[in-house]
């Protein structure tokens, strides 16, 4: 029962002996020595470090916009500071709940319907014994990953357009009524999920195929000797063999529920489906860049980033609890 207290005392006792590296005498000297020895290494790192500094760290300064009534003419320093005004405005705006609902719905549909498919596909590919066939299938299912969202959205429009889409022409030929696939709000989330599956499910198999190739082949031989058929081998060796990979990827996927494909949604969005399509990023673009309300839109961006950060850190910890390597 007294365990936690003991731990604190232990920690306290331990603290003084933990000297900071910077406070050691000669630390500066050591740095100089290392710098002299590795000066070309440091030089080699300059372009990359400059990139991260300018394009990843400088923009963090821009987060202060959330507390400003930013005017491009006045700039950062002279724009009026408004405190948490935009935060209060954003969270009390009915738009906020709509954005949140859409993001969650799109993400959860993705987890429920997309997530299992690469696993099933990888298990099927794993059973293929003819290597040529396996490789050809892999080439074909990986390919859509490399196509742009513009192309995917374009194909989708050509197939499912109401007036001249191929699917609707077929429906008409068989005497049916054309369906408004693209502008019917009830179909929109399903459409996004189907697109994601078509584009990325094949690519998603890579990680599971790698896990499958790590299973000890002797296990299969032993099972065969014991009379296990192919189905039993999959049930008792293959699936348990990749179970930890599946669990970890699912946990890490949960950490990314705030990230829904911006380009995809932006391209598929239109007036009639706007209320089910709008997510944080599309909102930031419309309100911030198009309507010029920089401060207010930055709040929406910050909300998404902060929730995303918390979720990633939490899920990463959870993944490590399972004894696996996390995202980092």
């Amino acid at each position, binding site marked *: 029962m007294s365990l936690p207290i003991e731990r604190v005392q232990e920690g306290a006792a331990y603290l003084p002996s933990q000297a900071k590296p910077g406070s050691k005498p000669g630390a500066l000297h050591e740095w100089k020595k290392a710098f002299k020895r590795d000066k070309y290494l440091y030089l*080699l790192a300059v372009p990359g470090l400059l990139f991260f500094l300018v394009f990843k760290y400088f923009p963090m300064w821009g987060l202060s916009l959330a507390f400003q009534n930013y005017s491009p003419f006045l700039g950062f320093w002279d724009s009026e500071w408004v405190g948490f005004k935009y935060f209060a405005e954003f969270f009390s705006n009915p738009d906020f709940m709509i954005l949140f609902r859409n993001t969650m719905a799109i993400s959860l549909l993705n987890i429920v319907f997309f997530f299992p498919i690469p696993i099933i596909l990888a298990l099927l590919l794993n059973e293929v014994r003819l290597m040529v066939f396996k490789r050809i299938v892999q080439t074909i299912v990986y390919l859509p990953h490399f196509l742009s969202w*513009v192309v995917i959205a374009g194909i989708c429009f050509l197939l499912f357009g109401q007036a001249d889409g191929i699917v609707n022409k077929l429906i008409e030929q068989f005497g049916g009524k054309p369906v408004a696939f693209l502008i019917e709000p009830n179909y929109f989330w399903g459409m996004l999920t189907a697109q994601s599956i078509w584009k990325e499910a094949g690519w998603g198999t890579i990680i599971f195929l790698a896990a499958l190739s790590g299973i000890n082949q002797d296990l299969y031989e032993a099972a065969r000797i014991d009379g296990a058929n192919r189905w039993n081998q999959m049930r008792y060796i293959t699936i348990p063999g990749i179970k930890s990979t599946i669990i970890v990827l699912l946990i890490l996927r949960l950490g990314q529920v705030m990230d829904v494909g911006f380009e995809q949604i932006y391209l598929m969005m239109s007036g009639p489906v706007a209320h089910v399509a709008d997510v944080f990023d599309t909102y930031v673009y419309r309100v911030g860049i198009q309507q010029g309300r920089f401060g207010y839109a930055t709040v929406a961006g910050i909300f998404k980033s902060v929730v995303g950060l918390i979720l990633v850190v939490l899920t990463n910890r959870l993944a490590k609890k399972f004894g696996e390597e996390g995202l980092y």
Partner: protein
Amino acid sequence: MLIPQTWSLASYEYILSTKTFLRSMGISGILAVGGTLLSLIVTSSLAYVLSRRRLKGRKFILFAILITMLFNPGMIPNYLLIDKLGLMDSIWALILPSLTSAWYVFLMRNFYMEVPDELEEAAKIDGCSDIGVYFRIMIPVSASAMAAFGLFFAVAYWNTYFAGVLYINSDALRPMQVILQLMLVQSSTQVADPSVAQMLGSEQVMPPQVIKMAAVVISSIPIVVVYPFLQKYFTQGMMVGSVKG
């Protein structure tokens, strides 16, 4: 009605004869070639440096890079940065912000960490500096990883779309995906861009559907042609030190 009666390449000839589409393909081509080269250099040099265990300050740099993977300030700060840097409406706005990412640096670093130290030591004895080791040993040794990452970068640059919407205003600099989107999503009467509207114009003998389909195919051909040859590298490249079980 849906079964083609005759085969024809007229729509391809037509698209490839329009200035707008060809010019935008040129821009995307410049991005794919130039951007990829720059990305490979920036990514691999930093990754190599961070793979050297003796480097002082390595942990701090790795942590600083990790933070950029976990927290993204978002669209507005990035937009204002491009504006402040004076990159608006310049091709650099499509290259520089996407030069590399924490993820790519970490993956490539894992690759360099598995290169045996003896290679470096031998080169040092022969009088190579650290920069010499990088260019003469590490780049050749990592050729397969370079091929894989090169493909990823090239595809990302070729598919550049939203950065083109956000940062490019002049017609001459629009990347191909932006033009393609204007062609595909809008019907010929709605297209705001007159040069794109003209491509889909009703004076044409071909239905706009056919031209749209052809544009999709043309834009995807480079990827479809190049990617199968690099496939064996990217499965390797993706897996380098990343999955262990």
